[in-house]
C-alpha cells in the first residue's frame, strides 16, 4: 500500500537532489535543471496532498507551478545565451567579474 508518506519521501528526496545540484554543480544549464527538480518536488507534494484531501485545488496549484517554471526557464536560458555570447562560457565558476 502506497501512502501519502511515500510520496512525501519521494518529494523530499527530489528537493534534496535539487538543492545539492544547485549548490555543487558548475554548469549553469545543470543548475537550471536542478531548480526544475525542486519545482517538481513541489508538484509531487501538491498532487499527493490533493489526492489525500480529495480535492482539486492542489492540482490547479501544480499547473500554475508548471507554467511559472516554464516562464522562469525561458528567461533563464535567454539570460544564459546573452551571457554565453559575451563570455563564451556556461561554467558557473568562470562567471567571476563580480566577486561572488
Amino acid at each position, binding site marked *: 500500500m502506497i501512502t*501519502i508518506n511515500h510520496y512525501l519521501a519521494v518529494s523530499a528526496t527530489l*528537493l534534496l537532489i*535539487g*538543492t545539492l545540484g*544547485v549548490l555543487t554543480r558548475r554548469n*549553469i544549464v545543470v*543548475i*537550471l535543471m536542478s*531548480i526544475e527538480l*525542486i*519545482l517538481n*518536488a*513541489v508538484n509531487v*507534494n*501538491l498532487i*499527493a*496532498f490533493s489526492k*489525500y*484531501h480529495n*480535492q482539486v*485545488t*492542489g492540482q*490547479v*496549484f501544480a499547473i*500554475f*507551478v508548471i507554467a*511559472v517554471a516554464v*516562464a*522562469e526557464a525561458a*528567461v*533563464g536560458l*535567454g*539570460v*544564459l545565451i*546573452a*551571457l554565453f555570447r*559575451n*563570455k563564451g562560457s556556461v561554467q*558557473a565558476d568562470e*562567471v567571476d*567579474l*563580480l*566577486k*561572488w
Partner: protein
Amino acid sequence: MITYSATDHFILLPALLLGMFGIAVLLLDFLFPKDIKGRGWLVGIAISGLVFAGWQLWEQHRYLAEHGMTPLTGFNGALVLDNFAIFFNGIVLVSAALVMLISYRYLENEHEHHAEYYALVLFATFGAFFIITGVDMVTIFIGLETMAVSFYVLVGFLRGDKRSNEAAMKYLLLGGFSTGLLIYGFSIFYGLTGSTTLIALASVVPARGPHDPLLYLGIVTTLAGLLFKIGAAPFHMWAPDTYEGAPTTVTAFLAVASKTASFALLLRVLAVGLSGARPQWEPLLTGAAVLSLTIGNLAAITQSNVKRMLAYSSIAHAGYLLLGVVAGNDTGLIGVAIYLLTYAFMTIGAFLVLVALRRKGAAVETIDDLAALSRRYPSYALLMLVFLLSLAGIPPTAGFIGKYYIFLALVESGKYGLAILGALYVAVSLYYYFRLVRSMFFVESTEAQVLAPSNGVRLALAITGMATVAMGVLPEPFIRMAAASLGR
C-alpha cells in the same frame, strides 16, 4: 460558482491599470516606427499608468476610511484590501514612478533605450500588488514570480554588458532556487490545511503540536525563501553582485520595490498564517537578523564600489527590519512600516545621485569617483550627505525614526541584548557611510565632466531629498500613516 463581483473589480483595479498600461506600452512601441525621435512619450504613458493606479489606490483608501476601515475581501478570499495593502502598494508605486523619471536619460546614455524596460517596471509593480494584497498562496506565488521574472530581465537589461549579464544570471539562479524553497513550504502548508489560504493555515497551526516535523519543515523552507527575497543573511549572496551589475536605475527599484513587497509578504505570512507558530520561527528570525546585521555592516566596510557598499548596507537594513518583527509588539510592526517608507526614499535617493553623476563614457561607481564632489557639485554632495545620514539613522533625517521605533520596540519587549547589538552596528555603519562623506568633502581629485542631468533626475532628486528631510523633521503624519496601515 465563479463570479466576478463589483468588489472584486474595485480591489483589482490598480493592478488591472498597471497591467493594461504595461501591455499598451509594448503594443504602441510595436505599432509605431522605431525612428520616432526619442520615444519619450512612452515614458509618459508608463508614468500615467502609475498615476492612474495611484489614484485608484487613493480611492480605495477613501472607501475604507468611509467604511470604518473594515477590510474588503475579493476573489473568494484570495485578495484582501486593507490599509496594510494600500500603504505598501503606495510605497512600491512611488518608487516605480521615481525610477521611471530617472530611467529615460540613463538608458539613452547606455544605448539600451527600449520600451520593454517601462513595460517590465509596470509588470514588476503589478506582481508586487499581488504579493502585498494576496492572502492565498497561489495568488502570492503568481505575484511573486511575475515580479521576480520581470526583475531578472531588468537586471540583465544591458545586454552587451558582461557585468549586467552576470548579475542577471546569478540573480536568476539563486532567485529560482529560493522560489523553489518557498513554494515547497507552501505545498506543505497546503498539505497541512487542505486549503491554500493563509487564514486556513492560521486555524490549523495551533492544533499541530510545537514539535510537528512537517510544520517545522514548512516553516524552515518558507522562511528560507522569504529571507532570500528580502536579501537577509544567510541568503544574501545574490545581493552585492546583483546590485553592482544591474543598471543603477534597476538597482534602486530592486532595492526598494522588491524588498518592500517581500517584507509585506513576510509580515502577512508570519503575522496572519503562522502567528500560532511564533516559538518555532522566532529563533530562526532572530538568528537571521543578527547574521544580517553582522555580515551587512562588516562586509560594507571594505567595499570600494558604492553600489556594492549600498548592497551590503541594504542587507544590514534587512537585519534591522527583521529585529522589528522579532520584537513582536505593535511598536515593532509600526517601526517596520515606517522604516520601509523612509528606506524607499533614502535608498532611491542615494542611487539617484550616482545616476545623476554619470560621466561621458563611464558610470560613477567607486568611492574614488566621488572624490571632491563638494567642490565640483556642491548640491549633489549635500544631497548625498543627507541620504547617507538618513541611511545611518542620524536625526533629523528620515532614517532615524525607523531605527528609533525598532529599538524602542526591542526595549519594550525586554530584548535588551538585541537592542544593544543593533545600536553598536549603527556605530559601525557610520564608519563606512562617512568614508564616502570623507571622499566627497575632503579628498582632492582631478576634474571630470558630468553629463547634464535631465529634468526627470532633478525632479526625482528634489522629491527624495525633500521627503528624506521632511520625514525626519516632521515625522508625526508619517508615523500616523504607518500605524494606520497596521490598523493601530
